[in-house]
């Protein structure tokens, strides 16, 4: 294993983190929500003007009738004139924007990039939200049949249970763990925890997928101030965290086009690439913020990454290995499931949360002695996957 402590000038480091609470922000517009996260991320560094601002978003064109979020948000944040654009890869938008920031910084053409994930779901109502979500499926051959990401996850779930002969509550542990971890996360939407019996009695929303198998879609914004090591200002108040690997991979957009849909190839290859880039092995990772928008996706993500053999991902949720003190903690602040799912902003929340863990600033959610964390967000039910590995910088 490489020693990641010998830094060089083109190292990519996170120097500021901001997250708004996730929930229904009826009184807050998309620009205001983004600004809240930006202010936190820029904290005491207001004098540091980012060279570029990348906005990750998937729903604003449909739900807020708004494009050009880059210019809108940059100007509203008092950063008029900056290089800016919007990046979209559905639920993988956030990780994709971080990937672009990583490359911009590595190129040396930017010294400091601000990445903002923002989603304002409550600008839409009722069936319009479901339609907007369905745009991440194949419009011509999936959405036209009345399908949504939720029903696609249910199709995967039913097949998974059929092939692996899993018990009815096989996935319950993902929900229970996420809700447990959210209790102490002030940004989380659900902080009451949940019991196994609640899972068993939960109403179906797309059988066999029940209410606790799906994450609530809600408003939220997270921001990261990321810089090259040779451009980091002195006197930072919090420890820095390094992004040591970054990758983005895809597969078919349509679920039915995949030769083997229970094998999440984009997730697998993005993890392989990230491990190779970081020169780490899976065992070196202390936590894994995966995209648990649906319980089944958590199981499949663990399998694709290699933490469990095919068909056995659900067992990790049964025996405590994904809990805060387990062998591979996931959703340490509640994940999409209990923190709330913020669409295209998800990947930015994940990296922000891992940063808190590696800084040792995770409070009651702290994973003991966390040195390496991996984040993975996905677009659609596995069409795109962005994976990042972060490392603690020893003081």
């Amino acid at each position, binding site marked *: 294993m490489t020693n990641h402590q010998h830094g060089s000038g083109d190292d990519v480091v996170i120097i500021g983190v901001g997250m708004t609470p996730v929930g229904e922000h009826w009184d807050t517009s998309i620009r205001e929500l983004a600004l809240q996260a930006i202010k936190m991320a820029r904290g005491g560094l207001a004098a540091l003007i980012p060279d570029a601002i990348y906005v990750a978003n998937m729903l604003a064109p449909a739900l807020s009738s708004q494009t050009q979020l880059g210019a809108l948000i940059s100007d509203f944040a008092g950063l008029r004139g900056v290089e800016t654009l919007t990046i979209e890869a559905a639920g993988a938008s956030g990780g994709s924007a971080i990937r672009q920031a990583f490359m911009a910084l590595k190129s040396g053409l930017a010294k400091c990039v601000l990445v903002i994930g923002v989603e304002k779901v409550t600008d839409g109502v009722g069936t319009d939200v479901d*339609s907007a979500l369905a745009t991440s499926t194949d419009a*011509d051959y999936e959405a036209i049949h*009345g399908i949504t990401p939720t029903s696609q996850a249910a199709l995967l779930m039913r097949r998974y249970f059929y092939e692996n002969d899993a018990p009815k509550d096989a996935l319950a542990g993902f929900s229970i763990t996420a809700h447990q971890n959210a209790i102490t996360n002030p940004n989380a939407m659900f902080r009451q925890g949940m019991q196994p019996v609640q899972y068993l009695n939960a109403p179906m929303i797309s059988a066999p997928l029940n209410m606790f198998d799906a994450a609530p879609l809600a408003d939220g914004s997270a921001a990261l101030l990321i810089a090259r090591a040779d451009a980091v200002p002195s006197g930072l108040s919090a420890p820095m965290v390094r992004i040591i690997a970054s990758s983005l991979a895809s597969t078919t957009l349509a679920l*039915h086009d995949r030769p083997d849909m229970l094998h999440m190839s984009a997730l697998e290859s993005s993890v392989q690439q990230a491990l190779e880039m970081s020169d780490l092995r899976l065992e070196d990772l202390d936590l894994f913020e995966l995209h648990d928008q649906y319980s089944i996706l958590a199981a499949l993500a663990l399998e694709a990454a290699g933490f469990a053999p095919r068909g056995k991902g659900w067992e990790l949720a049964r025996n405590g290995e994904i809990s805060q003190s387990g062998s591979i903690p996931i959703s340490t602040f509640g994940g999409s499931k209990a923190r709330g799912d913020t669409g295209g902003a998800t990947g930015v929340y994940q990296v922000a949360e891992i940063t808190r863990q590696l800084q040792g600033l995770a409070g009651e959610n702290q994973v003991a002695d966390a040195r390496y964390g991996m984040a993975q967000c996905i677009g659609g039910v596995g069409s795109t996957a962005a994976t990042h590995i972060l490392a603690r910088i020893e003081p």
Partner: protein
Amino acid sequence: MEISRHWRLAKQRYALVGEVCPNCEHKIFPPRDICPDCGEEAQDLYQFSGRGEVYSYTQVQQAPTGFEEYAPYTVALIKLEEGPMLTAQLTDMGKRPVSIGMPVEMVTRKLRSDGERGMLIYGYKFRPAIAS
């Protein structure tokens, strides 16, 4: 919305016309210009039989705009007997329970109505196979 798109897709949606790769003989649906198996151009039309079996299924409770009148409805992944998989609704099920592996056949039905402009879109759904 999108009138031209639905007109354009009518052949595939009404008649389940896909392609066969002239190189590797892989059958392709939905149609593509490049064979996903061998990378060659695949433009020979192929008429699918419309027979297949249920690979997975679920019941949609919360429908997107344009599908409210049908909810709840059952969507499925159908594995066609020629090989390809597709997404479609199940219809004409009566009281029959759905199951994985169940033989089904294609029928043409109304897929959705486009509220404001009143456009109706037709295409394939699948029902329990009457004979194999």
